[in-house]
Structures are given as C-alpha cells and as structure tokens.
C-alpha cells in the first residue's frame, strides 16, 4: 500500500533503540504505563481509518501531564518520532503509528477542570470526550457547539488537532471558532500557551495556526473552549426533491432568504434507502434527494423562520415538506442522518468515506462527475452532504475481499477529491489530511506552497519528530504521486502497483 510511511519518498526516519528507550522511560517514570509487546501494541495499530495499520514501537499511556513533558524531552534527546493520539476516532489516519515511533496516548487525561458559567468557558484536559463537555455544561443551560458525528467518543485534544466540524458548522463554526486557549507541549517538551482566557492575545494568532495542525506542531495538554447558551428551541424540516439539482438550488434559496439554519443536510437516494432500511426514520425512499433543515434559536424567531423556509422549499420545487411534529420525530429525523454511515455499511461489505468541500453552486456538476466516475470505476457511491457549508461525504461502496476493490475505491476517492479541487474546493473539510490524503495535497497545493508548509513545521519542530509523514507531503512524494493526479482521465490502471 502506497499510503504507509515510505522512507524512499517520505524521508529517512531515525532508528531508535527500543530496549534502551524502554529502559530510559521506565527509569524516569516508574509509574508510567508502557506497552511494548506485540500483543499489547496491536490494539493501537490504527485509528478510525482501519484500512491502514502499523504496529508502533512503543505505546505510552501517561496520566499526568508532567509525564508527557518527560516523554517528549526523552524522545527529543534520543531523536525518537512521537505520534500523539486521543480517542483514535480520526478518519484520515492522523494518529496512524510509526514502526519506529512512540505512540503517545492522551486518552487518560479525561478530567473537566472547570466549567465557568459566568464567563461561558470550560477548561478541560485533552482526553475529555467532546460530548462530555456539553453534558458538564448542561446544568448551566450551556453547551459546546462543534459536534462531529463521533462526539460520543472523540476527544477534544483530537478535535483541536483536526479542527473538527460537525453538522452545525455553518451557523456555529468549526473547532477553531470555539476555542479560547490551548496549552501545548512543544516538540522538545516546553510548555506554551496559545490564545488566552480573553477573546484575543498579543502577537501572532498561533492558536489559529495550531488548530487543525494534526499533531505536527505540538501536543495539546489543556483546552479552554467557549460555551454557548443552548438554543431555546430547535425544529427540523424534511423536504423531498425529484432531483439533486433542485435540492441543491433550494439550499442556496434558503440562504438568499437571509436564513442561516443550524443544520442543513442533504442525502441522495442511495443514502436515503440505506438509512430508511436501517433506522426507519420516515425518510422518503422514492425521492431523488432530501434535505434536512434545522432551525434553532429563540422560539418566536424559529417559528418565523420555519414558515419562511417552508415557502422557500415549496417554491424551489420540493415534492413534500414535513416539519417534525414533536421532539421524538425530530430525534428520528436526525437519527437517520447520523446513522447514514453505518446504514451504508449494511448494504456493502466495506465503504470508504470521502470529505471534500466545494462551493455549493458546483454541486450539480460535482454530483454528475461523481456519477460518471462511479460508472467508470464500477463502484457505487452514496452521497451524504453537509449542504449548508459545502462539505461532501461521498461514501464509496466496495468489498475489500474482492481483489483490487480497495485499490479501486482509493483511486476513485482520489479522483473525487481532485474534482473538488478543480471546482475551487478542498480535499478535506473536517476529517484532515492525515496519511489518507497525503497524495491529494499535491493536487491542491503547488510545490512552493508545500515548501512554505514545511517552513512552518520547521519553526515548531526543526527535527521533524512530531507525527512525521502526516498532513504535508514531501516534494519527493508529490513528484512520485502528484503528477498522476494532474493528468485527469489518464489514471494508470488502478490495479498496477503504485510504488
């Protein structure tokens, strides 16, 4: 598989002495849990992108922040690569271990340090689960807005590293919009505070730079998030359409009417059917596309907005518009969307989830392109779409037990991402580059831009020890694989070995 670390194109890695490192770590921190046998290491060989697996050199499970500092200092002085990992739910292989690297598991730092209702922030350790923050804030009528679909399990440290999104981003923003302060340890084990308890801080906006940097610039040790008052009410509408184009135009019409929905999701027929079979959410199985539009806020406004949106949807050609009658029906409408991935998992042995973003106006063109690619590669694609913010999640259906199908799925995925770049979009909206999209970075950025990314990395981690091989490809890698992506339509036969 070309995606695993390949020293020929990704650069030489140090060769740490495992026994020596193990002895040094346990001498320095007798109470630190260190995993070093193959059977103990195996469970950590992948994150949420389970197609790619590497057994790490060692796994360390610190439960005190000063241990993290000691680990980083020791690894730095011994020139050992370190891959930080939170809950391991990431979908781009950002926490994929290295054979010659330490996997630093931050999951045990699961303490909520402070919920300050008057100042509307929560200060938490990096291993705290996303949803746990909102649960802790709930007694004050507050919550933490970003809600990636893995929010039950994913950790806030990982959310910072990936700049995680969710279904409410258009109105409430991404992780970067909802942070006040992040405390980190640098590559050489120094504490540093980015941002502040105030709304800004002196100097460059390193907090913005750090958010979404995928563990390449430092290790998160503490996070201060903004809390928002919970919307008084939330109503959700389900609209059916005879074509995806009409559904796409309806999204633009809602926004043109001056309304920013809390959530605005689109699903195509394949996703609707798979989901309805699984969840029985009451979805229109004959519709070519459906929209879920959630309006939230103060009751009087939501009521007004519902009326407006209903009119807009009807004018846009919706064949039916249903307002969830009560909280139970609203939950059911959402349950369908939130289970769309596992639902698709039921109709195919495997699926591969993409994460491209596009300007919304390009939706019909991109969906048509995906359809053509789907035929060309002989694999079905189900489309689930954060329609409000242009974030597509095409799910490529395949069977890993069929020789060549995984490779074909990967190649199809790569083409879809290039299509997104071609229309002015991005290869990743919220899942991150990680290892998965490392080659597609060469399609989105030219060599000078990639060189500047490496310069940023150098400012923080001159020895390149934090998460090597992720997020930013080497120019060698782009030379090897990048050209393949530029010649659209001339992709070498996907079964061919790709170095």
């Amino acid at each position, binding site marked *: 598989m070309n995606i695993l670390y390949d020293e020929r194109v990704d650069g030489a890695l140090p060769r740490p002495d495992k026994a020596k490192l193990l002895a040094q770590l346990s001498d320095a921190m007798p109470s630190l849990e260190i995993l070093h046998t193959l059977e103990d290491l195996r469970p950590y060989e992948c994150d949420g992108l389970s197609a790619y697996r590497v057994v790490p050199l060692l796994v360390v499970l610190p439960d005190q922040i000063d241990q993290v500092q000691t680990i980083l200092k020791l690894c730095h002085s011994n020139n050992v690569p370190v891959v930080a990992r939170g809950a391991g739910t990431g979908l781009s292989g950002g926490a994929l271990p290295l054979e010659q690297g330490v996997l630093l598991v931050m999951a045990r730092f699961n303490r909520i340090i402070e919920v300050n209702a008057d100042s509307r922030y929560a200060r938490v350790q990096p291993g705290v689960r996303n949803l746990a923050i909102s649960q802790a804030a709930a007694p004050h009528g507050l919550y933490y807005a970003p809600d990636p679909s893995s929010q039950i399990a994913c950790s806030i440290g990982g959310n910072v590293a990936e700049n995680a999104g969710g279904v409410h981003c258009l109105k409430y923003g991404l992780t970067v919009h909802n942070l006040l302060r992040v405390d980190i340890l640098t590559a050489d084990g120094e504490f540093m505070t980015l941002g502040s308890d105030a709304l800004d*801080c002196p100097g*460059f906006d390193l907090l913005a730079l750090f958010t979404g940097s995928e563990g390449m610039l430092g290790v998160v040790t503490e996070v201060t998030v903004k809390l928002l008052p919970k919307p008084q009410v939330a109503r959700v509408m389900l609209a059916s359409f005879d074509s995806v184009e009409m559904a796409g135009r309806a999204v633009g*019409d809602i*926004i043109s009417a001056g309304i*920013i929905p809390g959530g605005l999701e689109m699903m195509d027929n394949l996703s609707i059917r798979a989901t309805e079979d699984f969840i029985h959410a009451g979805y229109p199985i004959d519709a070519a596309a459906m929209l879920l539009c959630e309006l939230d806020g103060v009751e009087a*406004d939501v009521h007004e907005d519902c009326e407006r949106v209903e009119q807009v949807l009807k004018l846009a050609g919706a064949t039916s518009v249903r307002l969830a009658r009560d909280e139970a029906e609203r939950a059911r409408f959402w349950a369908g969307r939130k289970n769309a991935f596992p639902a698709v998992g039921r109709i195919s042995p495997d699926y591969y989830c993409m994460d491209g973003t596009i300007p919304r106006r390009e939706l019909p063109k991109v969906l048509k392109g995906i359809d053509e690619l789907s035929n060309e590669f002989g694999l079905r694609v189900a489309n689930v779409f954060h329609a409000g913010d242009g974030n597509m999640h095409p799910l490529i259906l395949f069977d890993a037990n069929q020789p060549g199908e995984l490779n074909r799925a990967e190649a199809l995925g790569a083409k879809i991402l290039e299509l997104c770049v071609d229309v002015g979009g991005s290869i990743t909206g919220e899942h991150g580059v990680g290892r998965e999209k490392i080659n597609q970075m060469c399609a989105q950025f030219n060599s000078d831009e990639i060189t500047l990314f490496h310069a940023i990395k150098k400012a923080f981690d001159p020895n390149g020890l934090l998460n090597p091989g992720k997020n930013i490809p080497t120019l060698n890698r782009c030379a090897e694989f990048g050209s393949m992506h530029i010649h659209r339509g001339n992709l070498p036969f996907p079964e061919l070995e790709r170095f």
Partner: protein
Amino acid sequence: MRQDHDDSTSMMEQVSYALNKRVPLRIQGGNTKANIGRKVVGEILNTRSHRGIISYDPTELVLTARAGTPLTEIEAVLEAENQMLPFEPPHLGQSATLGGMVASGFSGPRRPWAGSVRDYVLGTRIITGHGKLLRFGGEVMKNVAGYDLSRLMAGSFGCLGLLTEISLKVLPKPRQCASVKLELDTHQALAKLAAWGQQPIPISAASHDGKFLHLRLEGGEGSVKSACDRLGGEALDGSYWSKLRERQLPFFDTSEPLWRISVPNNSAVLNLPGKQLLDWGGAQRWLLTDEPAEVVRLAVTALGGHATRFGTHESPFQPLPEPLLRYHQRLKLQLDPQRIFNPGRMYAEV
C-alpha cells in the same frame, strides 16, 4: 466609481527588489491604522492600486477581493444584497482597505457574539518573504488541508507576508435590530451581562460608559421585541455603535494615552486611575490613563488579559513571554527570512 486593477505584478517586483537590495518594506493600504504598532523604517509598499472585488456570490456567503479594495466599497456591495461583515471592522478613516482590516485584525462591537476578523477569513493570496505569490485556504467554509496560514495572517500586521487577496465568509444582516440603554453601575452591568450570557437573549453588542449599559439586540422580529420588552430601559440611537466602533464617542476625544484592554468578559472593573469604557460585553475595555505601561500591564495580566497602547510607543503590544517570543521569531525567520515585511512593527525582535 470602482477602479478595479490587478497590481500584483508590480507588487511582486517591489518585493523582489526589496529582497535583492535587502531593503525593508513598510506595507501601507489606507494608512488608517498607522497609530497602532511600532514605527517601521523602510520603503513604502502601497497596496491601494491593487483593488477590486473579484467575486461575490451572496448565496455562497463568500466574497473575494484584492487587498487594496476600500472597505466602504465592500460594505456597499454587501449592503445591496442585505449582507454584512459580521465582525463590524473599525475603519478609523475613509480610506481603510480590506488588507489593512485583516492585517490589523480589529473587530467591532459584535465580536463576542459573531466572532472576529480571523474567524471569517477563508483564504488568502500572499506574497511571501521568498518572493512567491501563493494561495492558502480557499472560498469554502470548511477546509482543513494544510496549516491555516490565512488565519495566521489576520492580526499579524504585515510581519509574515504581503496579503494580496482575501476571501471572507459573510452573513445575512439580521432582520431586526434595536438598541436600548439602561441605567446601571458597572458592577451591576457586568453581573447582568454574565447572567444574560447564559440565556438565549439576542444581544449583539454591549457597552458600559460608567453610568449606562448600552445594549443592541438583533434577530427576528419576535425575539428582538420580547427582549426589548423584558429588558426595559430607554431606546438608544443605533449610531452609538458605529461611533463606538470608530472611536468617535466623546470618551475618545482627548489627548490622554489610549489603551485597549482585552480581558475575560466578566473581569471586575480595572483598578487603575483614569477613565474606562466597556465594550464587547466586558471583554474589551478602553482605558485613558497616564499610568506607565508596566503598571497598566501588571494589572491587566493579573486578570488574564493583555493591554495595547495606541499612539507612539516603544512597546505598543504586550511583550511576549518565553517561549512564545522565541516561536514568533522562528516563524518570522521561516516566513520572512530577510525581514523585509514590516520588521519590528509588532515587536522589535520580530
């Protein structure tokens, strides 16, 4: 009246020249933010002839324009579509440009509720300290490919590169807007704001002048009306907010040194001599005082905030502690190795 013009070629030439001759550049747009930051000695690189809106699609909520585009032009185009820059950038002069808005990173009264300039930056084109014109980010709401260079540029005062083009997220204007003023002392006002902040009241600006709490409410007809009914007080002319944003209230009409204090929103009243004006629901405070910088900063740091001094001053921005300063220097060295872009504008060492 629009004079769209792509001047990037001559800007590239000037940067190449500066790199070759090792001449520092003083980047200047409308020159409306000149009274903030340290003096830069260098040749002026003027961005004002690189102007014009390149694309604006109201249904996409995205606008892209050249750095020298006047802010007034951008706001007029948005206004025509009933949209806005939600962070209400202070112009501080007729000639304010988009590039200066992003480089200075200043946001107006709506900032605590709607976000800051950097929150709305989606993408940029930058001439780097290596003399290359590069593109980062883009015109989509969600984009996590590579490091977020675009947001890093916001508030960096031109020290990390020359902005040539910026894409911003914009938003529809609220349907309804009302302003009220309530007689409360500062302590009462801060306590009220802390309590209201935990409730779904559509406050979009809050300022206290020592005697009155000024509030703006924005949302739908229903929520604004019910909030007005609930809060009481007397009606306030909405021009208060633009005067506050532009520092045109009588408070600012003085020769005393002006400080911008950024603190956690419910911090107590600053225990410093001089006059204070609360903005951003308490998170931004304007202070007029003759106290020395060390005294002001000591008091503000104790609250977890920082203080910026307007006007001529050796240290206008709060000094950075180690290791932050070192990482600022390293970033500057990587992105602008010859220190040609606004050297020393923020800090002598950067």
